[in-house]
């Protein structure tokens, strides 16, 4: 399934509205880090990955792991809009009995390949999936989305070491590089710089990208696929809260739901009301 960037723009606008409406309905959740990853997930689910929503367990499918599991709203919205389940279900996010848990639960939702939420762990499981694909002679690709705050976790670097050691060229990590974590900027809380040099020194193929530019993301994924000697990491420069003016680059919107008024303003900015 290949889309023109104009189509991807429309899809991403819908996913942004979904994120706002879901977190408002749930009265909790993580809009900031969901909004920053919209173009990345839109590109993956509507352009890059070899997947088929009508056959979510097809053996040859590519796998995606949301290592920054708190961005569950963007994953659920992307899956629903891609056809894995009815978008109406999105508004059940975080409610008792809902399949849409606060952090992704692979046992429940079609298209979710790994249960995540505890930072660092998704990346490690993605390494395992990439090794497994090789053992099983499966030509699939494995993708993992990391947060920049998540790079504080020691497990990330254990996983990075092993991905390079086993030369997992079928693995692509994408860093949602928005510069903010819960207590402040990356630099204030625990500096992760220089990320590019860190990954390069661990043996990864490092690719820079504009994380809200579809053409640039497509180019980055193409470069990652072309590398046959090492795993790739795409450092995707993003803005936390992207697309909603009062949420952009604001630490306070990491884990806070919009009020009814804030939702109305956000939806207006995203092109007007349109029910999920």
């Amino acid at each position, binding site marked *: 399934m290949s889309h023109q960037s104009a189509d991807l723009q429309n899809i991403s606008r819908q996913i942004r509205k979904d994120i706002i409406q879901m977190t408002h309905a749930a009265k909790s959740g993580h809009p900031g880090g969901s909004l920053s990853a919209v173009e990345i997930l839109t590109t993956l689910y509507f352009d890059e990955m070899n997947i088929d929503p009508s056959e979510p367990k097809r053996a040859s499918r590519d796998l995606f792991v949301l290592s920054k599991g708190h961005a569950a709203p963007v994953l659920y919205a992307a899956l629903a809009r891609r056809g894995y389940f009815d978008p109406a279900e999105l508004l059940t996010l975080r409610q008792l009995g809902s399949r849409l848990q606060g952090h992704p639960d692979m046992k429940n939702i079609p298209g979710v390949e790994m249960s995540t939420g505890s930072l660092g762990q998704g990346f490690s499981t993605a390494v*395992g999936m990439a090794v497994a694909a090789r053992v099983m002679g499966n030509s699939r690709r494995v993708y993992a989305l990391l947060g920049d705050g998540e790079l504080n976790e*020691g497990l990330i670097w*254990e996983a990075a070491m092993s991905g390079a050691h086993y030369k997992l060229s079928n693995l692509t990590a994408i860093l949602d590089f928005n510069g903010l974590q819960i207590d402040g900027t990356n630099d204030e809380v625990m500096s992760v710089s220089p990320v590019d040099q860190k990954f390069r020194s661990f043996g990864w193929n490092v690719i820079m990208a504009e994380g809200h530019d579809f053409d640039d993301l497509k180019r980055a994924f193409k470069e990652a696929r072309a590398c046959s000697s090492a795993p790739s990491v795409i450092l995707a420069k993003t803005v936390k809260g992207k697309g909603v003016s009062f949420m952009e680059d604001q630490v306070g919107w990491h884990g806070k739901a919009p009020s009814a008024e804030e939702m109305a303003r956000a939806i207006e900015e995203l092109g007007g009301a349109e029910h999920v």
Partner: protein
Amino acid sequence: MSKPSAQKKMATREAYGEILASLGEKYPEIVALDADLSKSTKTDVFAKKYPERFFDMGIAEQNMMGVAAGMAASGLKPFASTFAMFAAGRAFEIIRNSICYPNLNVRICATHAGITVGEDGASHQAIEDIALMRVLPNMTVLQPSDGVSAKALIEASLKIDGPVYVRLGRSAVPILYPEDAAFEIGKAAVLREGIDVTLIATGIMVNEALIAAEALSEQNISARVLDLHTIKPLDTEAVLKAASETQLIVTAEEHSVIGGLGSAVAEAVSEGCPVKVVRIGIKDTFGESGTPEALLEKYGLTAAHLVKAVVENLK
């Protein structure tokens, strides 16, 4: 069942190495992971036979468990091994969130459990791993008492759809069962019938319980001996049967008295058929360096300690 040779000894980790390599032939989906301890955990036997299905993850136990989870999610049957301290302790939260929560088919075969690690001292003596693994939903917890049961239980564990923790020891221990003995996960093995007291033991303490039962018989005390190789799910039926048929239960484990076999038995007995339960184990303290024999003596984990507990508590 025929009597095993009394002299023969084997460490349960040795048995693990042998059965894993042999299962590799039957199950192409088996892969093995280790954290730079393959010569000690005995996964090196599998590694030599199936180098393309063995993955040394280096001294990084957390990542090893995460990688094993990803492999299991892809349809493989990974066996992940390191010392019990680092498997259950260091990697606990990865086991919880990436293996147990999604109910993935990872077998964690943890060796060098308990105080009989010996000279390495307290930092390497896992005496709380049963408690840590038992509390996790979806987890099955096994502790074989000898080489024969280790092989049989590890093979049987492949039929379980979900994670399994297998607690294995460093030292060679006597073979208690004949080669053809049958084991069922979740069913205690009754090694000796008795009417006065039931000794419920697991791991290396099963042999001590058998010696204790023999000594007790000389004092005209009839002791039943159960090998509780499956700590979770607990064989509540066998435990409550013992509670209703014998007036005292003594549990024995090379583990803290908090949270392990003794706790599991006491929980079942207090709810189902209250009788006195005396727990033999490590009494909420850290171990220290020493020979395994000296440590078992100092920390109260011998047949003589079991006999004393029975005599003191039997009305």
